[in-house]
């Protein structure tokens, strides 16, 4: 197995999905520039969709920031896991931090020795970054060209994207139970509290269910 080939195939498949993000962002009234900046600066799929999803649901910017940041905490733990392997300092550490995401970490940790791990991290991180940003621009321009988002089903593309991201995480019974309660809590709260609050409230469920083994 070549780490280069692994990295490339992950980069192109995941990157292509950036077009769904670009389209969803523009459908939720973000500008093409804002959609592209989210992909360049935030660069973490689930968190980017969360910013768009919370604002589309009528939530406040603070709410969008909090939800997106909570979704991004796993990147911090990836960094923790990768630091002793990458052994970086200064500017390189800044670049590495920006491309520390699910895919770069996944490909890196799948390799057998540290040298291959480092290659996997850099190839995949940079590869996904390049394709994700190019496809974001394409998706955003495409959505801008077609007008009414509902007529093209773009309003369903956002939750479908979340479902696609959630699916592989539903690996054990605990996750299914948590997902069930999260649907109940979010929808029960919706009519009674400002938009956005029902989403972030579900963090509490994760803490309660994760507290005990």
């Amino acid at each position: 197995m070549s780490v280069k080939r692994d990295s490339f195939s992950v980069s192109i498949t995941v990157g292509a999905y950036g077009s769904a993000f670009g389209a969803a962002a523009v459908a939720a009234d973000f500008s093409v520039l804002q959609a592209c900046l989210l992909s360049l600066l935030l660069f973490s799929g689930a968190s980017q969709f969360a910013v768009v999803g919370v604002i589309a649901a009528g939530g406040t910017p603070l709410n969008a920031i909090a939800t997106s940041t909570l979704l991004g905490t796993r990147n911090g733990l990836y960094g923790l896991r990768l630091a002793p392997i990458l052994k970086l300092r200064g500017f390189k550490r800044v670049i590495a931090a920006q491309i520390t995401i699910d895919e770069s970490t996944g490909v890196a940790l799948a390799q057998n020795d540290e040298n291959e791990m480092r290659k996997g991290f850099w190839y995949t991180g940079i590869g996904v970054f390049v394709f994700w940003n190019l496809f974001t621009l394409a998706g955003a321009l495409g959505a801008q060209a077609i007008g009414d988002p509902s007529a093209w089903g773009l309003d369903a593309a956002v939750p479908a994207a979340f479902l696609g991201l959630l699916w592989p995480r539903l690996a054990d019974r605990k996750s299914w139970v948590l997902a069930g309660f999260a649907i109940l809590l979010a929808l029960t709260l919706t009519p009674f509290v400002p938009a956005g609050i029902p989403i972030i409230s579900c963090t509490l469920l994760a803490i309660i269910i994760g507290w005990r083994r």
Partner: protein
Amino acid sequence: MSAFWIAVLGSSALAFLVKFLGASVPESFLSHPRILRINNLIPVALLTALIAVNTFADKTKLTLDNRALGMAAALALLIAKAPFPVVVVGAALTSALAYRLL
């Protein structure tokens, strides 16, 4: 500054901070099993809530519309092990069709 810009720049700044701090703190600080467990569950909770709200709510009103049909299609495609882009496009096409017919 508009709500959109605050959301874009604020979330980007914090996302980078989280990534950078993770690579900088001593390992023992965050590797408690309870923290790791909760951290693995947070995305499940938030993604599920985002799905629920983006499918069945319009601001603070509960609704049932074309998006629900799109999501049913997405679910069916995932169960059939369809690849990611097919799931998103399938949901969009179904929802668009329902929007035109309903």
